[in-house]
């Protein structure tokens, strides 16, 4: 079977560890993006991935830094931003984790243990997302 190409990414190359029966990157999102790109905008998917990698690295650092200083608001802002940018490139499980993180820090009383656990999970998943995107890149 011949896979359509877009940027340096191959459909069959975009996969990774599964989370609860779901891949870390959602292939149908990529399909939709490729359709959106059409012939006019061949760099779209590549651009989106690069923009995500560039933006998310800083955001993850912000989260870790904020965790050290117990600045829960900063955690919330970064998680909010990551939630939507990761969903756009199909990193759906990671996006959901960010959403949970955002919800948690917006509670009246933040359970710090739960926060640490969620941040740890987000970091792990983020590495997996990066690895999955980084294939062939």
């Amino acid at each position, binding site marked *: 079977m011949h896979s359509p190409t877009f940027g340096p990414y191959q459909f069959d190359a975009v996969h990774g560890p599964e989370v609860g029966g779901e891949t870390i990157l959602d292939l149908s999102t990529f399909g939709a993006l490729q359709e*959106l790109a*059409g012939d006019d905008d061949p760099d779209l998917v590549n651009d989106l991935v690069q923009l995500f990698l560039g933006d998310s690295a800083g955001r993850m650092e912000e989260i870790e830094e904020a965790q050290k200083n117990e600045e829960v608001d900063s955690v919330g802002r970064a998680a909010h*931003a990551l939630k939507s940018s990761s969903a756009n490139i199909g990193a759906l499980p990671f996006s959901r984790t960010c959403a949970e993180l955002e919800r948690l820090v917006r509670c009246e009383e933040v359970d710090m243990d739960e926060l640490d656990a969620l941040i740890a999970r987000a970091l792990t998943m983020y590495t997996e997302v990066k690895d999955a995107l980084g294939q062939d890149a």
Partner: protein
Amino acid sequence: MERSSIPVQFEELKSSGNLPSPTGVGMRILELTQTDDYSAEDMAEAIMSDPSLTGRILQLANSASVAGNEAVTTVSGAIMRLGGATVRSIALAFSLVSEREAGACRPFDYERYWSLSLARAVGAQELAKRTGVSKPEEAYIAGLLAEVGMLALASVHSTRYGQILIASQGKSLGALRQAEQDEFDIDHATVAECMLAEWGLPDVFGVAIGEFCRRRRFEPDRAEIASVADIVRFSDSIGSALLLGETTPARRLTEIGDQLEILRDVLDVDEPQAISFCDSIGAEWRKWGEELEIETTDTRFSQVFVAIAAGRERAAEEERQQNSEPAVEIDVDAAKAKRRRIHRRNAQGPAQSGELGQRIKVLAVDDDPVSLRLLARHLQNEHFDVTMARSGKEGLKKALQEKPDILIVDHEMPDLSGLELTSALRRSSVGASMYILLLTGSESEELIVEAFDSGVDDFVSKPFMPRLLSARIKAGVRIAHLQRKIERDRKTILDQLADRNALNRKLRTASLTDPLTGLPNRRHAMSRIESEWKATARSGIPFSVIMLDIDKFKSVNDTYGHDVGDEVLQGTANAVKSALRGEDEVCRLGGEEFLVICRSAFEKDGVVIAERIREAVEQNEIQSGGFDGAVTVSLGVAGTHEGVPSLMALLKASDEAVYQAKNAGRNQVVASGAPEPSPEERDKLRRSA
């Protein structure tokens, strides 16, 4: 210029709503300082609400000050150094500059206008410092606003003024003012004077700018710079030199060259010194240009003098066929001097963006680069003309610059949230009609209510579903189309209104009747007494004039309002008419002033009629809107006799008599003091009757 003497033609320009005027902080300062009890702190506070204005005022306070003075670092310090009135004028002038935009009058070169105005301002400031003729900061303002009358005409009558500019190209500025006068019944010199008076700028500016507009050149027979107008004249030549282009006519080059030579003589310097003085003005101009985002050139005066020398040779041939007043330079479509490109606000005029069928401009604002890139892709697929901004502040700046039809803005952004951006835009004239879509990750009731409150038109939740977003945008496009159409209709209506006002005025002046009282107007009065004067000169039959003025009329207007004032005028006109003989005629000269023309009457006969009028008015009870009673009039009578050499002398005599009647306590008749007529003269009059 006194407020009462503002001509009706100017009021018409004003009623178009398109006159350039200070806005934002400038307007606040204008309002604030029109109250009697504002303090320097109030003004400083208003100025400081605009950081860029604050910076510019401090820059001017320091660049205009004499070397050795300590630098001014606060607005209050600037007010102390320059005086409140001056700081106020500066603030108004700068707010005008910052509100500038390219307008609809295509032949008017807006860029050149502001470049030259700024060069004139800086040049005037330096000349004032050098000569001590005026305060440097006052000279700066006079230079900056010297041609504001032309800007105003271009803004209000864009099409008609454009035609005048094209027709006047290459002709003298005097011819341009004449053409303005013919078309609008007012010229740019008077418009400028009225605008400055309207803003309450001190008289020194109106006087200087009026003189400058009426005579642009410094005449070579004068030895020194004597007024602010002279300073502006020379700085205009320096500025024109800085903006010389390949297409500058040779004749204009020569004029500029002549003025620069005169300047050199007046300043008593040699050519290298003159060049370095002018170059220092150029350098200061470029600095200000960057600050105010006005284009400048890299012209050096050594080049200017070379170009002028070359131009003189060419001009010698052209000279004979033209008159020699400074020519109108508007650069209709000519290649312009290479200007330093500076990024401009509001570069797009309303004419281009008002057309239907043009691509819809969408500005997308999101701090998340991934969402932004994706959003832009979607919009491009729908064939929108897309601009992107990565933060709220950038979004605000681009929205004001690009004037998009639709703004799609993310809710959560760290520097300026979508809602803050929306409220800021809704306060501006540009953003009021924009269609604004909010992208939001949450759909809580409070947020949505708050969003609509701050002026959002619609919202889409994030991550957006492409088809839904498209549908929402299409709804927005329909509304944006309607907005454009409304905007265009509104402009057409305003244009028509301005035209109709001008037409009405022409009809009014053409007719000879005062519409309020139904009496003949000043125009009729003047032609009537002229023919009486001629008839008297031929026949020797005397006539008299009675000038009369309603006493304390201003207090009627002030106390009861203009509507009551109008009724008092009408009532008085009727009372006067009732006291006249058949052959007498009363005309309204204007305001509360009337003139009665009594044919076949010696001055003493006029006095009898005047006394009858006085009584009639005094007994004429008027009831109107709270006013209940009678007014009184003061009357001055003058009759023809051998000692009155001219019609003007006759009118002046009656006017002086009114003045005496007022001084003597009002409500009385004073005669100019003509001698008793001789028996022969009396006989002659009796025989003619």
